[in-house]
């Protein structure tokens, strides 16, 4: 590695500002994982599985396809930022209660896609839920219980004033 190509990148991760020293070609996926955000998984590395999904300024994106240099000044959310053992997000509880987790490798990406959906569209139709999870490959569950989990969490943002989207 050429040390002269190191650059600085600043962004906000789960609400706290972070500074990284990166190479221009580094993938956001690797930068986040090296920084300890191991919930961000690599399932394919080419944008086809969704295991690496994060929220970039609130929108779900495949972090394996994003150069880290591109997220300067952006806000990033990973699963570490939406729930803790003592205070899991209602969506995470719904996944647990519906049996939507098997091997768990697809789970963080899937939670974030569901999160973005329900935040923007508190009462999605079945088809809207399927569409929102279409980019999150899961080889274990057959998707049935994942869809049920999202259905079961409908309205969870509306119920929680703090999470409510502005203007709703």
């Amino acid at each position: 590695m050429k040390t002269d190509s190191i650059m600085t990148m600043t962004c906000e991760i789960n609400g706290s500002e972070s500074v990284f020293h990166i190479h221009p070609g580094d993938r956001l996926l690797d930068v986040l994982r090296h920084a300890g955000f191991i919930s961000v998984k690599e399932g394919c590395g080419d944008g086809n599985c969704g295991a690496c999904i994060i929220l970039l300024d609130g929108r779900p994106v495949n972090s394996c396809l994003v150069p880290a240099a591109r997220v300067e000044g952006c806000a990033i959310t990973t699963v570490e930022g939406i729930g803790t053992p003592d205070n899991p997000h209602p969506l995470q509880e719904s996944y647990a209660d519906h049996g939507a987790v098997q091997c768990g490798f697809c789970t963080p990406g899937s939670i974030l896609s569901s999160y973005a959906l329900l935040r923007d569209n508190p009462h999605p139709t079945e088809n809207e839920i399927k569409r929102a999870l279409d980019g999150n490959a899961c080889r274990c569950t057959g998707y049935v219980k994942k869809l049920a989990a999202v259905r079961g969490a409908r309205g969870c943002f509306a119920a929680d004033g703090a999470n409510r989207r502005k203007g709703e």
Partner: protein
Amino acid sequence: MKESDSEREMISIGRSVVRPDVPDKLLGRAIYAADAMRQGMLHVATARSSVAGMKNIQIDISAAQNMPGVQRVITAKDIPGNKYVPLIVSDMPFLASEQIRFYGEPVALVVARTRQEAKSAARAVQVTGEMFDPVLTVEDSAGPDSYVIYEGDYEKNIFKKYHIQRGSPDEFWPESHVVIEREYRTPHQEHAYLETQGMIAELDENGEVQVMGSMQCPFYVQDAVASILGLAKAKVTVIQMVTGGGFGGKEDVSSVVAGHAALAAALTDSPVSLIYDREEDFIAMSKRHPSVIKIKIGANREGLLTAAEIYITLDGGAYSTLSPVVLWRSTVHAAGPYRWQALRIKSRVVATNTAPNGAFRGFGEPQSVFALESAIDELADQLNIDPLTFREKNVIASSSDITATGQTTVNPSILEALEKVAEKIEWKDKFTGAYTGVVRHDIEPIRGLGCSVSFYGVGLGAEGKKLDRAGAFVQVESDASVRVFIGNTEIGQGARGVMAQIASETLAAPLEYIHIHRADTSRVPDSGPTVASRTTIMSGNAVMNACQTIRQSLETSAAMVLNCAIDNIKTDQRGYYDAANPSTAVSFHEVVSVATAQRQQMSSSGWYVAPDTSFDSAGAGQGNAYSTYVWSANIVEIEIDPGTLQVKALKIASAHDIGRAINPREVCGQIEGGVLQGLGFALTEKVAYSGLTPSIQSVPDGIMLNPGFSGYICPTAMDIPEIFPIILETPYEHGPYGARGIGEPPLIGVAPAVANAVSNALGIRIRELPLCPEQILNELIKQGRL
């Protein structure tokens, strides 16, 4: 007097509780192999062959050695121990040194400071030699001029053969009213577990090796690591980390990954991490065996089956790995759960120059069930009998009916399973004849219904019985928390949760007191592999066995506290009580405190050996092949788009008699996941190789053309039908609380049910998977219906 399980209310069994592994996975805290870090850890990458066939190879590592960050490049000659992976027949080298037998075969390992440096250097390893024409199909494999990939007990390029003969089918052909002869084919199927293969290996100051990672079978891995390093197994500890799916794909081939990681750690004296990327996982790891199956079956005027002749050929790939046992399961189940008056089954698995095929959910059975259940429908069609009625007339339905191997079974429940799925999908009202007109884009979508039945021998059966035992270790701590060690793994299927429920029930301990440790070969003796839907029965019984010993201590102490006879002690949610005075109970916690103070035995190992099985492989292939069977039925409703000819599954009802559902919601999860993998097998999944698929001319033959999720199409959330899982519970006398197992059965019958539904929709029969629009188009063109 002990009450029976059915009389009393259960504490944990039969409850749809949240599995213990779930919270960490949801919070993003579960540590998988790629997440592990070690001080001074180096990274390993595998250098692979870029062609499918080459002899007298020379491996040039000099360029790779000089790449940035590279610490060491390892080839076969550096292996201190056994150079071959220990499996049934050890023909597969850890690292190729003489010949290349498949595209992606490992030739060297590169150890570097970063993963990227290791990967770049691995690409710089040069392999030269004499290329040969790779054998790519089972037909080529037997050809007189084909390359000799394997020589063993049989003819050239045959890994294994089986033969089952009961009566003489030839006597039945003349008197049969209808006889059909057909050939069916299935392709490779990729496991596509979401977490790729990965291992961490390190040595300690005592020369002991520890390997951790993604795997199904820690004891296979222990064997492989001890073998490649030439170490005693007692010096090798293997620990399973959280594993992102397996489906059979982390059964045998994880031994290669672990062997490589351990070798790199030993030769560099550093902790190492070896994580596959998706492309190499596709290229080099095992897949479902492609098959060619020829079937001749007949029935008499009354619509009763007469005889069957079945010839199975499986494509084993370049090395034998698990092919012999995959072939055995395929063979034993090939005649299905039907009453045949005579039958002959001959099977073989052959070598080709493709990645070695191995275990995949169903283990050879989905191929033979696709062929047979398609043929059964074709025969029903010829007899002009409703295919469901035809099955009802012919399936094994009583304890005196026998399987292909001459085995009688206890409470076969296919008829009940069929009735349940038929009711769910409303078969009787909806099943009508096929649309036989011209298919134009502007007509309504065409619907069809298809059914299938199957049975599945749980566990390793007679050909794997040496390994069919399991251990466990249970220890109740003084605070009443309970630690449980098992020898089978949690690969996403819910094993840890099931074991916690079994331990809780047997000890009458609250479920939240139970802690199931990760599988660790130093804590539990060899418990065999986590495969064949065997974990619930095997580890479950071993856990029960250990808990029962501890329960004796607890009952003794409880009897003292309650001042009653030990035989009078019963348990429920509250804890332990005197049957003569049920209103007072002592909690589990209290009983543990007393028992601990009384120096009672509060820990125990457990052991379970599967009931005996038999198979006369040198003779007619008769015997009690498996100790119990799951009985299954499926009905699927599909719709074909007249414009694109795409098949869309609308509804699938999938019924399985699993004895007892320990956690019903998780059982449904297994059924749903299995059904969708089965649907992928039916409709979209296929591995393409150059030389077999039209491809760019400059590519040599035998290169995998779609090693990734963009070219290999698995079903997504948009593709799912309505799935109706149906659980039947006829208790299995040797199962823990009557349970059998459910991992594999849900996948097995889906593809033939879909093929039968396509036939019911359009009156065309597709005998090769996947059932893609091209195939339907070709059939319609042949019939002049476009």
